[in-house]
C-alpha cells in the first residue's frame, strides 16, 4: 500500500474534473485521479454545443436562459442554482475561448450560435440561437482544451487509478472527508490519498441500460461510492433518454442536427412533432420528443421492417451543411448504419443518455449529508452531481455548461477550503474496505459470470424502466435487479492477476451499476406522477401537490442488498411559479 498527501484530490478527468483541476491546481497542491486517460472521458462524445446568452447573432439574455432551464426541467429545478448557471454561462464560454477553444465563428468573427431544444426567446416565443459550438464536436473540443490547459498548468494526473472508496473521519460535528482510496490498474496496488478536500467528477451511469449513448466505462462509480458511505443520492428516477440515438445502437446523433433544421418523421413521412409541440416542433425539450417518438412507435407509426424506429430527415440541409456543421454524425450514420444522411433519412430511437440526479450538492459543489448539512471537504460536480440545475429533464447543451460552471465552482471551493484548513487525520485502516472488496472479487466463491448479470440487468432496465414506465414494469425491474444482486454475491472472474486486471475492474463496476439501478427503480416506483424524464403511463399527469419535491435516497446499513430509505427535499423557488408545460 502507498500513501500520498495532497491538499485537493479530484476524482475523474472529464470536463468537470479538469475544469475543477485548472482552478484548484493554481491555488493548492492538487492530484487528479482517473480510471482512464484524461482525454478518454465521455465529455468528448458531447456534440452539439454549450448554451450561453452571448446574444452574438440575435437578441438574448440570461434570464430567458434561466427560465428555459427551469421550464425544461419541469419545475423541479432549484431556481437559485439555474440562475447562477445561466448568468455564469457567458463567462464560462468566454473563458473556454480564451483557453483556446476553436468555436465556429460568425461572419464578423464572433462565436457563432445555433438553435437547440427548449432554448427560446422571451419565455417560449420561438427558438433562439444560444448554443455556442465547434462543428458537432463541441464536447471533444472542450475536453481537449481543458486537458491542454491542464498540461499548461502542470496539473498532476494519476492515470488508470480507479477510486473505490473515500475516507470519512468522524468528528464532533459529523463526518469530514479526509481522502480517497484508489486501486492502481497497472500494478494492482492500493493507494491511500490523504487530502483536505476531495472532488467527485466521475460522470454518469448509463450502462445500467442496454441502449445507451454512454461509454462502457460510465458505471456510476462516484455515485455508488457516496451511496455506500450512507450519504444520500438525489432524484435518481429522472434519467434522460436522448431522442436521436442511432436505431438499435444508441450512438448519439446531436440535437444540433434539428437545431440546423433536420426534421423527425414517422413511417408515412409525417412531421409528427407538429402534433406534440406546435410552436417549437422538433426543437421541443428531449423528454417531450422522446415520449412522442415512443408513442409513434407504440401506436404503429414507426418506420422500418419492424416499425420500431422513426426517421431523422437531414436530406434537405444539403451536403455542405452536413459536412461542415455536422460532419461527425454524418460519418456515424455512414459507418454504423451504412446510411448516408445527405441522401436518405437516418433511423433513430431514444437512447439512455444522462442522469439528472446524482450526489446532492449546493451551488458551491459541497456535498450534502442530509437536507441541511454538508460533509466538509467533500465536493461533486458534473453529471455525478445534482445541484439541481436540470430538475426532471436537462435541456440540451446544459450539461457542457454544468461541468464548466460547477466544475469551476467546485475547484475553487475545494482549494479555498484546503487553504483554510489543516489535514484531519484519516480514519483507522482507511484501505480496509477496498482491500476486502478486491480480495472478495478475486476469491473463488461462485460461478456467476459478470457479463451474464450485466446483460440481464441492461435488458430488464431497457424493457421495464425506460421512456415509459408503469407500476407493473417497475415492479418487474425491481424484482429482476434484486435477484441479480443476489447472484452478484457469487460472481467469479477469470483473471486473478495484479497487472491491468480489467476483468476485476468490470466486476467492481457491475456492483455499482446494480446498486444504482435499484435506486432508480425504487425512486420511479415511489414517484406516482409523470414529470420530465420520468413518464408513468399509469400516472400520466404532473402532480405538484404531492410530488413537487426532490427525492433523497439513503442506503440503510451495509452490504449490497441493504434497504433504501426514501426521503424528500423541497425545491427552491425564486421567481418562477410552476405552469403547465407547453411548447
Amino acid at each position, binding site marked *: 500500500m502507498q500513501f500520498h498527501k495532497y491538499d485537493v484530490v479530484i476524482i475523474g478527468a472529464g470536463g468537470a474534473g479538469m475544469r475543477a483541476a485548472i482552478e484548484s491546481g493554481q491555488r493548492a497542491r492538487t492530484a487528479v485521479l482517473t480510471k*482512464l*486517460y484524461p*482525454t*478518454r*472521458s*465521455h465529455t*468528448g*462524445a458531447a456534440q452539439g454545443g454549450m448554451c450561453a446568452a452571448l446574444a452574438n447573432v440575435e437578441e438574448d439574455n440570461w434570464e430567458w436562459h434561466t427560465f428555459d432551464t427551469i421550464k425544461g426541467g419541469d419545475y423541479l429545478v432549484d431556481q437559485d442554482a439555474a440562475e447562477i448557471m445561466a448568468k455564469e454561462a457567458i463567462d464560462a*464560454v*468566454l473563458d473556454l*475561448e*480564451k*483557453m*483556446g477553444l*476553436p*468555436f*465556429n*465563428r*460568425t*461572419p*464578423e*468573427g*464572433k*462565436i457563432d450560435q445555433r438553435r437547440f431544444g427548449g432554448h427560446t426567446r422571451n419565455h417560449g416565443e420561438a427558438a433562439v440561437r444560444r448554443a455556442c459550438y*465547434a*462543428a458537432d*464536436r463541441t464536447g*471533444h473540443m472542450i475536453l*481537449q482544451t481543458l486537458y*491542454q*490547459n491542464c*498540461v*499548461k498548468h502542470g496539473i498532476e494526473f494519476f492515470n488508470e487509478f480507479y477510486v473505490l472508496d473515500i475516507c470519512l473521519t468522524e468528528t464532533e460535528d459529523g463526518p469530514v472527508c479526509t481522502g480517497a482510496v484508489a486501486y492502481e490498474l*497497472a500494478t494492482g496496488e492500493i493507494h491511500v490519498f490523504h487530502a483536505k478536500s476531495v472532488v467527485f467528477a466521475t460522470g454518469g451511469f448509463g450502462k445500467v441500460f442496454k441502449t445507451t449513448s454512454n*461509454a*462502457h466505462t460510465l458505471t456510476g462509480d462516484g455515485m455508488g461510492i457516496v451511496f455506500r458511505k450512507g450519504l444520500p443520492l438525489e432524484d435518481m428516477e429522472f434519467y434522460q433518454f436522448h431522442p436521436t440515438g442511432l436505431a438499435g445502437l444508441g*450512438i448519439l446523433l446531436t440535437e444540433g442536427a434539428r437545431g440546423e433544421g433536420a426534421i423527425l418523421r414517422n413511417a408515412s413521412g409525417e412531421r409528427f412533432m407538429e402534433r406534440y409541440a406546435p410552436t417549437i416542433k422538433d426543437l421541443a425539450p428531449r423528454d417531450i420528443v422522446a415520449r412522442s417518438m415512443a408513442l409513434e412507435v407504440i401506436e404503429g407509426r414507426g418506420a422500418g421492417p419492424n416499425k420500431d424506429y422513426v426517421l431523422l430527415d437531414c436530406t434537405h440541409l444539403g451536403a455542405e451543411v452536413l459536412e461542415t456543421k455536422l460532419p*461527425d454524425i454524418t460519418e*456515424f450514420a455512414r*459507418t*454504423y448504419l451504412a446510411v448516408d444522411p445527405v441522401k436518405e433519412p437516418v433511423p433513430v430511437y431514444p437512447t439512455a443518455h444522462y442522469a439528472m440526479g446524482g450526489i446532492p450538492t449546493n451551488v458551491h459543489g459541497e456535498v450534502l449529508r442530509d437536507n441541511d448539512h454538508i460533509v466538509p471537504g467533500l465536493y461533486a460536480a458534473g453529471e455525478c452531481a445534482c445541484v439541481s440545475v436540470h430538475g426532471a429533464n436537462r435541456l440540451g447543451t446544459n450539461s457542457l455548461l454544468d461541468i464548466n460552471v460547477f466544475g469551476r465552482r467546485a475547484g475553487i471551493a475545494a482549494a479555498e477550503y484546503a487553504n483554510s484548513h489543516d489535514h484531519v487525520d484519516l480514519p483507522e485502516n482507511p484501505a480496509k474496505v477496498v482491500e476486502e472488496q478486491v480480495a472478495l472479487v478475486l476469491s*473463488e466463491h461462485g*460461478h456467476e*459470470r*459478470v*457479463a*451474464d448479470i450485466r*446483460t440481464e440487468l441492461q435488458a430488464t432496465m431497457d424493457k421495464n424502466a425506460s421512456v415509459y414506465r408503469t407500476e407493473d414494469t417497475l415492479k418487474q425491474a425491481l424484482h429482476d435487479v434484486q435477484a441479480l444482486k443476489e447472484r452478484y454475491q457469487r460472481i*467469479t*472472474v*477469470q*483473471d*486473478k*492477476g*495484479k*497487472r*491491468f*486486471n*480489467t*476483468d476485476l475492474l468490470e466486476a467492481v463496476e457491475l456492483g455499482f451499476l446494480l446498486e444504482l439501478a435499484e435506486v432508480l427503480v425504487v425512486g420511479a416506483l415511489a414517484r406516482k406522477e409523470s414529470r420530465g424524464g420520468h413518464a408513468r403511463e399509469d400516472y400520466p399527469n404532473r402532480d405538484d401537490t404531492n410530488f413537487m419535491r426532490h427525492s433523497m435516497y439513503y442506503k440503510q446499513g451495509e452490504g449490497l442488498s441493504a434497504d433504501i430509505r426514501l426521503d424528500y427535499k423541497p425545491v427552491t423557488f425564486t421567481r418562477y411559479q410552476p405552469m403547465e408545460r407547453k411548447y
Partner: protein
Amino acid sequence: MTATAEVSTGSRGAQPPVPDGAITVTLKIRRFNPEVDDEPRWDEFEIPALPSDRVLNLLHYVKWYLDGTLTFRRSCAHGICGSDAMRINGVNRLACKVLLKDLLAPKGKQTTITIEPIKGLPVNKDLLVDMEPFFEAFRAVKPYLITYGNEPTRERIQSVADRERFDDTTKCILCACCTTSCPVYWTEGSYFGPAAIVNAHRFIFDSRDEGAEERLDILNDIDGVWRCRTTFNCTDACPRGIQVTKAIQEVKRALLFKRI
C-alpha cells in the same frame, strides 16, 4: 489456446445464444502478459459474429465469454475517445470503428482477423500498451494556446477563414494510430511522431496564438519534423480522416520559410 497459471479453471457457463445471420470467424490475437509469460504468443478464438459487429464487439465476446484475461482498453465504442487503437489485419485502426463486414474473406472462405497491439510503444499486457511516451511527446510541443498581453473582455475575434485554417488538426483524439504506424517512430522512439506534430500544427496555424516560434524551435530539433519521410502511413491510419502528412509538410514549410 494456452492456459496460464493466472487463468482460473472454474467453469465458464454456456455461451449466449447465437443471433440470426451470424457467421463464424477466427480471431487471432497477440497475447503477452509479462507477469506470467516469457514470450508473446498467438491465441485463436472461433466466435459467432454479425457482419454489422464492430471488432470491439468480437473482442468483448472473447473477454466476456471465453477468456477474461484478455486485456485491452476501450471506452466510448464509437470512435471518439481514442482508447482502442490496435493493429487489425496489419493496419492501425480503432476496434470500435471497423465493422466485420469490411473484413470478410471471399465467399466460402473462413474469415480470420489478426489483432495485435500498436507498434512502437512498450506492451503492458496483450493489446494494452504504455501510452506515456506518446503523451510525453504531445506535452513537449506546448499543446495549448500561447498569448501575451492583456486578455480581451469578450472573445478574441477570428475570421471564418482563419478558423478554417487549422480545422483539420483540431479533430485529433490522441489515439496514437498515426504515430504508431510511422516506420520512423518504430525505429527511433525519440522522434516526436505525427500526433505531436498535428497538435503543434493545430496551434501554430491558429491566428489567436503567439507561440508559433517556440513550437517551431522545438520541432526544428533533431527529433522533430525533419525525421518525417513522408510515407503517408499516418494519414492512412488516422480514424478521424486528418490529413496528417499534409499537416507535417505545412509545419516543415513554416520552418523553411519562417512564415505561417
